[in-house]
């Protein structure tokens, strides 16, 4: 019955969609779950800011491509001194901002110094911390000198937080963004959509689309309806994986399942008893059936991980076999550690589905090994305050979306309170390594060290589940950095 009606609904909608797409299309409406808070990636951490603006409106000296590789951006090439301390960037000529400010070395100096300034509100200020100074020998050359070798510097300067901004418009970018990118901001209807149009003066090859609209739909069933009705052409991070079968069966749509950097983990408070006991942490790792968890919380989309690194990252090694699902072993380890059945631990659950629904599934699994999980849903504001800042928690489920962020385990104080001198030493070697072979070796060792110590229970990498009109070409299927780069997107005839 349901199916009949769904089919009926589908065919009516198909007819409507066919009418709408009769003429050649050069505009696109892209669906997003969250509305960005402001449109200035240099003054806010939200992924949604980057998903709208990155590579579309703003560009940096380097850019991250669909595969997570560093490519030339506003710097067409660069050279690095032997000691790894001096980066000389050769800048694109003829690029200019949407407000007609020409792009030259003074812009690089302005943008980086603004991010480093004492009153800077850059969410990733630490990316700029290694920079000693920025100099301009001429308009077309920027020389950046570092305090110490920094392995990921070029990658870091490709982040949304490091884009170039014009001194004239930097202060108002949040509501009226001005960049050098292929698309110009047109308007933002708050609570609904952001519109942008092709930039006729773009320095690079002109985008094929004439206009892009980002539409914000947070509700999964509403997102499904909007895509079915053709109101939304592409939904790169589709919030209703449970509705995908419907799209897979329909030739009008293409379903793409890719990877993201979202390392979803049960973060544990490593200084709090009993989680300071490695046996307890390992027991938790054995007690969770990652496959069933992915099925239950994410409708089967996601890749199990065994360390704080995703399968798409350079130098990934598969450590998912380290703690296979084994409730008996979990119970034994808990017994060894002196944990009595009925032990209660609290999970702080931030709003995303992976945490809320994942928490329910994990609670049921822990019940099997005699642990009572108390689930406490909290908003991001409280999570940041209670869990992240004050580290007042037992456990939390969280996805770390920053790419290649192995450094967080090397920090002196980070919310899960992992403190391992060996890891820190390894990480220092990694950052200062200049030889790529040595680097890649060390990345493997870092992952192994984490899997062994299991400071957090590593669950899965979030999948990028996208639904789009089958005629759209050039979308990113993976999510190496939060972005919806529309430069290469087009409609097939």
């Amino acid at each position: 019955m349901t199916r009949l009606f769904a089919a009926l609904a589908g065919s009516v909608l198909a007819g409507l969609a066919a009418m709408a797409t009769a003429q050649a299309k050069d505009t696109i409406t892209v669906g997003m779950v969250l509305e960005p808070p402001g449109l200035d990636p240099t003054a806010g951490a939200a992924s949604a800011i980057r998903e709208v603006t990155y590579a579309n409106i703003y560009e940096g000296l380097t850019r991250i491509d669909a595969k997570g590789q560093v490519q030339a951006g506003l710097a067409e090439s660069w050279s690095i001194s032997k000691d790894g301390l001096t980066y000389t960037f050769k800048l694109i000529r003829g690029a200019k901002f949407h407000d007609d400010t020409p792009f030259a070395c003074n812009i690089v100096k302005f943008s980086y110094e603004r991010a480093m300034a004492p009153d800077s509100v850059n969410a990733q200020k630490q990316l700029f911390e290694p920079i000693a100074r920025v100099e301009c020998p001429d308009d077309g050359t920027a020389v950046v000198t570092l305090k110490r070798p920094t392995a990921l510097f070029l990658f870091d300067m490709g982040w949304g937080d490091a884009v170039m901004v014009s001194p004239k418009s930097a202060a108002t970018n949040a509501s009226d963004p001005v960049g050098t990118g292929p698309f110009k901001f047109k308007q933002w209807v708050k609570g609904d959509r952001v519109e942008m149009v092709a930039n006729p003066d773009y320095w690079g090859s002109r985008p094929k689309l004439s206009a892009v609209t980002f539409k914000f739909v947070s509700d999964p069933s509403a997102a499904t309806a909007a895509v079915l009705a053709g109101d939304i052409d592409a939904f790169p991070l589709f919030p209703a994986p449970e509705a995908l079968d419907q799209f897979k069966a329909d030739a009008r749509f293409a379903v793409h399942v890719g990877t993201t950097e979202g390392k979803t983990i049960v973060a544990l408070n490593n200084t709090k008893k009993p989680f300071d006991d490695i046996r307890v942490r390992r027991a938790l790792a054995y007690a969770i059936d990652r496959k069933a968890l992915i099925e239950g919380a994410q409708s089967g989309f996601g890749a199990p991980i065994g360390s704080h690194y995703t399968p798409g990252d350079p130098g990934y090694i598969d450590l998912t076999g380290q703690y296979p699902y084994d409730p008996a072993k979990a119970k034994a380890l808990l017994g060894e550690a002196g944990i009595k059945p009925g032990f209660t631990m609290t999970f702080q659950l931030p709003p995303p589905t992976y945490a809320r629904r994942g928490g329910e599934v994990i609670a049921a699994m822990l019940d099997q090994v005699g642990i009572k999980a108390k689930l406490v849903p909290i908003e991001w504001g409280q999570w940041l305050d209670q869990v992240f800042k004050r580290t007042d928690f037992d456990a939390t489920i969280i996805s770390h979306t920053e790419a290649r962020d192995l450094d967080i385990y090397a920090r002196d104080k980070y919310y899960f309170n992992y403190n391992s001198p060996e890891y820190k030493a390894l990480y220092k070697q990694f950052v200062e390594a200049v030889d790529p072979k040595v680097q890649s070796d060390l990345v493997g060792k870092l992952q192994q060290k984490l899997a062994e110590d299991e400071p957090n229970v590593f669950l899965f990498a979030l999948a990028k589940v996208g639904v789009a009109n089958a005629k759209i070409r050039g979308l990113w299927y993976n999510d190496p950095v939060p972005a919806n780069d529309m430069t290469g997107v087009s409609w097939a005839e």
Partner: protein
Amino acid sequence: MRLRSRSLVVGAVISATMVSVAGVSLAWTPYPPTAIDIVHKLAAPSPTHPFGTDHLGRDVLSMIMAGASSSLSVALIAVVVGAGLGVPLGAFAAARGGWIDDLTMRGCDLAFAFPALLTAVMITALAGPGAGNAMLAIGIFNIPVFARITRSAARQVWGRDFVLAARTAGRGDIGITVVHVLPNIAPVLVVQITIQFALAIVADAGLSYVGLGTQPPFPSWGRMLNDAQTFIWRAPLLAVFPGVAITLAVLGLNLLGDGLQDVLDPRLRRGR
């Protein structure tokens, strides 16, 4: 009159059923309401699962049963909080009159100006979501309701001859309130309690629907509806059962309230 007592009977039967379902669920449900069985998720109703299973393979019938106990307990405590504080407040205002009365009533006006749900949202944002805070939020909103109704009913009683007689006999405000006023306004309060109980059930469902009420893993009707909305394309029936449960519970209490009103407060019978 015949119709009225019928609503009393029907209301009492539905309400008693709800209470017994809630009671039984504490001791027994067909399956544990929190037991996950991912392989059998979103199953259609069948003899093994009369109402089907949800997106994590939990038995919907068991969840509805357990939801009754959480819903009723939240509503009960909310009403106890509201009446427990509102009734004394209203009785006090009526007894003292003057500026105390004025101030109390202006305070009620102020409380009424905040839409109930908004108040609840603020309270849960402040203290975190959960059944306890939902009780508190709904309870706080009930205080001015009870204060107002108590005060206006009590003021009528204060004007009666037997109160004057008691006063001349030397009884104090508190004595008169306890001995004469409260027994006389009890019928009004009983009716109001049933009405607020029904409203509290709806409010609790609404709060859990937006994720602020009873928290998982313990089931609640409102959150079941929210989950169901996500799966509405695949399993539309999931959106039906919890709603029917809420409606039935509220309907039963409303009928009970109507019936009680008739029996306890004959003056009101004339009109309706």
